[in-house]
């Protein structure tokens, strides 16, 4: 199985790089305040969001465990993806962004990003991402980006089984997939 040679993506690929930048920087402060307020409220949470974004910067799945407005989400996603795309494979899979630490992993054209608290075990989150992908792979069989797009709700259901209240609650693939498979059977 030939491994796709990962190359450093040129930033010009990114559609968000240009005009939106200025706009976003204006927003930054507001978003910041909002977020620190939120952080104060659920400080026990470890996972703050899970994102799938492809290398064009298009969001394929987004689950936030704290409330952010549409604009804030858009801004956050754009900024983080830009940061991650600018990194090489040799560099570490963690990026600090504002008060989040983003752990990311790339599979083919898709980036899987998990935003966590500062004192979270990054390596464990990195492996959590892999567990998620393996779980999807078991369900869909050779999972690809399109599987996720066509079955967005099912991927969400899996994530709901794995993460609750921002905590990892289930890591057995069997237990994660059981309710989804049962549901399919009965419908």
């Amino acid at each position, binding site marked *: *199985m*030939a*491994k*796709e040679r*990962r190359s450093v993506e040129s930033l010009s690929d990114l*559609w*968000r790089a240009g005009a939106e930048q200025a706009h976003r920087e204006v927003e*930054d402060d507001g978003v910041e305040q909002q977020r620190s307020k939120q952080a104060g409220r659920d400080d*026990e*949470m470890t996972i703050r969001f899970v994102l799938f974004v492809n*290398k064009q910067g*298009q*969001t394929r799945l*987004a*689950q936030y465990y704290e409330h952010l407005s*549409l604009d804030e*989400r858009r801004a956050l996603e754009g900024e983080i993806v830009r940061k991650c795309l600018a990194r090489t*494979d040799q*560099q*570490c899979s963690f*990026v*600090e962004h*504002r008060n989040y630490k983003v752990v990311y992993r790339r599979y*083919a054209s898709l980036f899987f990003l998990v935003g966590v608290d500062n004192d979270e*075990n*990054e*390596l*464990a989150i*990195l*492996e959590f991402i892999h*567990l998620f992908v*393996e779980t999807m792979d*078991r369900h869909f*069989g*050779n*999972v*690809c980006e*399109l599987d996720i*797009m*066509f079955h*967005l*709700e099912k991927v*969400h259901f899996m994530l*709901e089984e794995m993460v*609750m*209240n921002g*905590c*990892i*609650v*289930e*890591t*057995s*693939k069997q*237990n994660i997939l*059981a*309710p989804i*498979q049962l*549901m399919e059977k*009965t*419908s």
Partner: protein
Amino acid sequence: MEQLRTIGRELAMGSQGGWGQSKEFLDLVKSIGEARSKAEEDRIIARELEHLKRRLADPDVPRRKMKELLLRLVYAEMLGHDASFGHIHAVKMTHDESLPLKRTGYLAVALFLDERHDLVILVVNTIQKDLRSDNYLVVCAALTAACRLIGEEAIPAVLPQVVELLAHPKEAVRKKAVMALHRFYQRSSSSVSHLVSNFRKRLCDNDPGVMGATLCPLYDLILEEPNSYKDLVVSFVNILKQVVERRLPTSYDYHQIPAPFIQIKLLKILAVLGSGDKQASGHMYTVLGDIFRKGDTASNIGNAILYECICCISSIFPNPKMLEAAAETTSKFLKSDSHNLKYMGIDALGRLIKINPDIAEEHQLAVIDCLEDPDDTLKRKTFELLYKMTKSTNVEVIVDRMIEYMINITDHHYKTEIASRCVELAEQFAPSNQWFIQTMNKVFEHAGDLVNIRVAHNLMRLIAEGFGEEDEGADSQLRSSAVDSYLRIVGEPKLPSSFLQIICWVLGEYGTADGKYSASYIIGKLCDVAEAHLTDDTVKAYAISAIFKIFAFEIALGRKIDLLPECQTLVDELSASHSTDLQQRAYELQALLGLDKNAVESVMPADASCEDIEVDRNLSFLNSYVQQALENGASPYIPESERSGVISVGSYRSQEQQETSSHTLRFEAYEMPKPSLPLATSQTSMSTPTTDLVPVTEPGYYKEDHQTSKSQPPGDAVSGEFGVKLRLDGVQKKWGRPTYSSSTPSSLASSQQTTNGASHSDGGGSSSQPRESSYGSKRQQGTEVSAEKQRLAASLFGSAAAKADRKAQASRKTAKDSPSTEKVATTNVTAQPVKEQVIPAAPPPDLLDLGDEPVSSNPPSADPFSQLEGLLGPASAAPVLSGTPATSTSKAPDLMSIFSGDVPTGVASGSTDPTLGDVNSTSSHKGATAVASKKGPSLQDALQKDATARQVGVTPTGNNPNLFKDLLG
């Protein structure tokens, strides 16, 4: 071929009966997937939203169709478009009888709405009803929704049912009930405080999933009050032990490691419970030792556990053996080629040095490598480590490095953080005032707008106070060097406002003090500053006040100076300014020019910024004047509070006095005659220059930061104002003056080098050479890199060691020190070329590591969790789905068939080949057994499906082949 694959895949997706995905939906997904730009995507979604609006308005949408429409709404919001018009339909769908529809409804509501949203109240009722359902999957869906949607007010509505469900026969329900309760605890701990004992009970649940989930709420509870849970230490240790001994079902294994995520959570809990508790920690050492011994350093997940173990060990009561093991693992991390591991290593080191600072020494060069790595994340982490290990002996090197790094940061959030760290370290450990001022100048120059203004005041105060009376020479030297450097820098564009304020103030106070620069030269510079920053009133105010002071000093010295034309322009401009503050200052300056030498001297004494200003708050010197006025028939003064009708104004004023900040709304116009009194005074004080006491009224004193000090005589306005502007209260003076009074930078450097043997042993450069300059040349001299690193290491760590020496036997340890650094030097030289070759290392093997799938997913149903004797009661957790193992076992040969099919045909690029197998993969939904037989490439099949697909009308273009790439492939 590419197209074929695309068609086959889409067809497979679309043709499944019962999935209800229409061509429309497929087209939408396809067009989003193939969109080339954000603009194109936006257009697609905008069109889609129009369409959805029309469709949703139709009352007769079939339920299944509704689900699809809802998912399309989810897409629109996910891609950043507002779809709030459809939110109500998501709420409606939660009422649906069919589970997939209901769950989709709950999901959409959770994605769309926050718990505080008005519509959520409509869902609470549904959740209540569903919690009572006979179908446990419905109950699960409701509990999941409760975790997302039940806000503080709604907790009582569902709480009794959730508590009841904690004892549900299905483990999936118990697990989710635990998490729902956890959520309620997060939302409002008081509402469930009587129920927390349930978490303890669920810890002993006979299902490992429930037990694992219970660790989450327990962790939160323990963080809050560890002492109430000390009794659980033994239980946690037992569970961890059993997990490590593989007593959990193998379905929890991940890459051959038993339940790693549960292990990590347990380690986190133990770290909290064992912190500062010798007895509790005693229980943990054995199992921690086991984990270290069994530690798998080859996989990420193994290392994640080891890292968590190190965190635990550094948190609990220290044990030498454990620390040794932790240090050993940390050094493995640091020596690794993987940046991820290096990062973890740096973090671990930061934890360990808190217990034993000497551990850092061994890793000096690894740390410096990380510091110089182009990887920004790693660099930041290393700076965090340096921040933790800063002492007075290495503060210069560390802060210099930090500033050097800070200059190039563009991220404001991080720049602020690192700037404040620089300030903090400099304030705490500064070896000399001189160094402190230079460092602060650098910080202000590059991040002046990001640091607290207090720091600026602190710096001005330091320059003004200097080293103290006994060393007046050094003081003036310090000041003239400050003046020199500021004159050099002041012309540069884009200096931060707070830095300009400092510059103006220092130039005003000390610009002409040593006679090196003429008054007109300084004034010219100050005028330039004011002109260059037209919009910044504060800077202009500082500039005009500085000019004012210079004039005053010159007049006091008896020299006659003329108002330069540009200065005159400035004064004229400011006299007409909208800001009353600037106006005031300008008029004061003009008034000053008309005064004689003696008056000026007392109004504006030279270098008196540190003198106290005595304030006669009672204005007693006016008594005779008042008396005289009364005698002449003036009506006596009635205090504001006793007057009728102005109480509110009075109370407002007193409030205003408390706030030192400025107000945009000014109330001067309504003020009582009070201000006119001191104004009269100012005249008196000026006309009688011998008066030492200068009266200042209380309100004016407080407000003058941003407002005119109307009530003050002009002379005092300046010195008094800086007395106020330097908000000294609460600012600690942290640098110790007497200890370092004699240390000039050069003597300091040399003295340090004699104390640490390391920098001598490398023989690089003359020992008296200042370190800063050697960094500068670092980049050009590649061959000297190791020597440079040596020196850096020595200054970072060696001096720390030297400090430790003083505590222990000095002679023995220095002797030991130098050979060790020499040894490290040689290893570094050899390591350098090796590293360069190794760089394109293969990515972590587990990416491709599907081989373990069959192994890990083959749960021997005969291996029940009942083996968790001791703590957990006996029970057998049979696998919920008998179908799953079959699917996964059939996968291994299936994978093989893909490979074997690939090799002979050799179509297209290797990376996409496995997708051939995907053509039929979705048929797996039909049934687990079908998968095995249907998987694998089938060209004929695909061709057939291509034909049918085109008949159906879906004509994929294959614009974005990435969509079909195997994620794990």
